[in-house]
């Protein structure tokens, strides 16, 4: 069957990268567009202004990948914030469920389970972004302390939540459950 060529991506929105000055915003726009991200220079709403009157609108779901791309190119920015006023802070809390031989930790929409004796990751569940099935295959059957961090190899907020779950699993395993 014939497939379509990719069209110029539509703008996606939902988040803002905030800057101290205009030059930083323009540098970041160039860096991110070269990395394949859809971004747009906009004026931030007054309540989100941190310095200059330019911000980059971006797909909030891509926050980890975008921040990593900026850091890799030493492109200065202040922070990333949800565009919608009233949006809550990024979730910091986690919850653990003890299944006996295994422990499951939930952070946001992500859950990571490990074997309490060996520290081996036995499952990853939840999430909805396309890096999660990839991270699932990368993490499963490997020891908590040996895996690449989802925040370093993933690109989305789901990956960031999975990283938080992994961090808590490491703390639980190394802090008391390791045998």
């Amino acid at each position, binding site marked *: 069957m014939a497939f*379509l060529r*990719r069209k110029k991506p539509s703008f996606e929105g939902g988040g803002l990268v905030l800057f101290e000055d205009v030059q930083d915003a323009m540098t970041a726009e160039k860096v991110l567009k070269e990395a394949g991200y859809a971004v747009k220079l906009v004026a931030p709403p007054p309540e989100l202004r941190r310095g200059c009157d330019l911000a980059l609108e971006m797909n909030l779901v891509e926050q980890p990948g975008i921040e990593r791309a900026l850091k890799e190119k030493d492109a200065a920015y202040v922070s990333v914030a949800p565009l919608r*006023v009233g949006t809550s802070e990024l979730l910091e809390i986690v919850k653990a469920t003890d299944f006996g031989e295994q422990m499951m930790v939930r952070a946001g929409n992500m859950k990571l389970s490990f074997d309490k004796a060996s520290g081996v990751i036995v499952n990853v*569940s939840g999430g*909805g972004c*396309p*890096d999660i*099935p990839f991270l699932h295959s990368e993490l499963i059957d490997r020891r908590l302390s040996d895996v690449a961090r989802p925040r370093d190899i993933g690109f989305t907020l789901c990956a*960031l939540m999975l990283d938080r779950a992994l961090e808590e699993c490491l703390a639980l395993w190394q802090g008391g459950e390791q045998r």
Partner: protein
Amino acid sequence: MMLIAGTVPIRGLPLTMGRPALEGDDLVVEGRRIPCAQGTGAMISAALAVADYLKLEAPQVLVAGDTGQGKGSREIYEYLIEKVGDISPQVVALHYCLPIMALMNRLCESVQRCPRKVLMIADAGSMYAAKAAGLASRFDVFTPDAAEMAFLADPDATHPAYIARHLFDADIGQTPDLVAAAYRHKNAARLLLVKGAVDYVVDGGGIVATVDEPDVPALEAVGGTGDTITGLVAAFLYAGLEPQEAAIIAARSNRMAGKFAGATPATRVRQIVEQLQAVFKEHLCQWSGVCCATGGQQ
């Protein structure tokens, strides 16, 4: 036709459409192997199990490789935006995709122009995009878990990572409150199947059923068991069941497959999928009235 669309974690896999077949532990679509693992692969596998059992036409699947940067997701959105009217499916189940609100908006517009009603189901990133873009009410079925239900209930969140803490803290017993909030803010599909220790089936804002047996707590930890539920709902809808009934039987089937598999947190989702045929054979007739002498004919 039942159409299942979503990304798969295979770098470089081009946009591919075709009928899947199960070969060993993998699905094969147009000669390309896709693991029956968490994500779209699990969803397809469950839908295929229903189609096999009921002797239905296998689902058409539209997949593309994407490991998080969104290229495959965009290819899927763009292809469907352009072609969904020509494909004219009866059921569309959208799954793991980078949530891109603008593209979801265009896709919903294309679906509205289809010559006949399309039953629209969304889970995972596609559900996030639909809610964040204010398009939830265009969908017939969402299948959130507890955290995702809190996301639907939060009018400002564009991703479950940004939900209000008090909503995240809500336990499954508070699902009715979250459901009410989601409908109040028009952030719910017509029917919700909320997956959790108790599964809630909600139609138009009213809870019409709960499913809590068999109780297999470990299923929450098994990656892909939410995906299989969505695949089951899609296939039962395609088989002609009413949405409420499709949701109830999907929830029961998934739980029973977990029980048959003796699920632990270390179980793989393909072990759950492998039990579905036995579950249907033993229970589907009683649950749904879809009865057959040899496990096939309706």
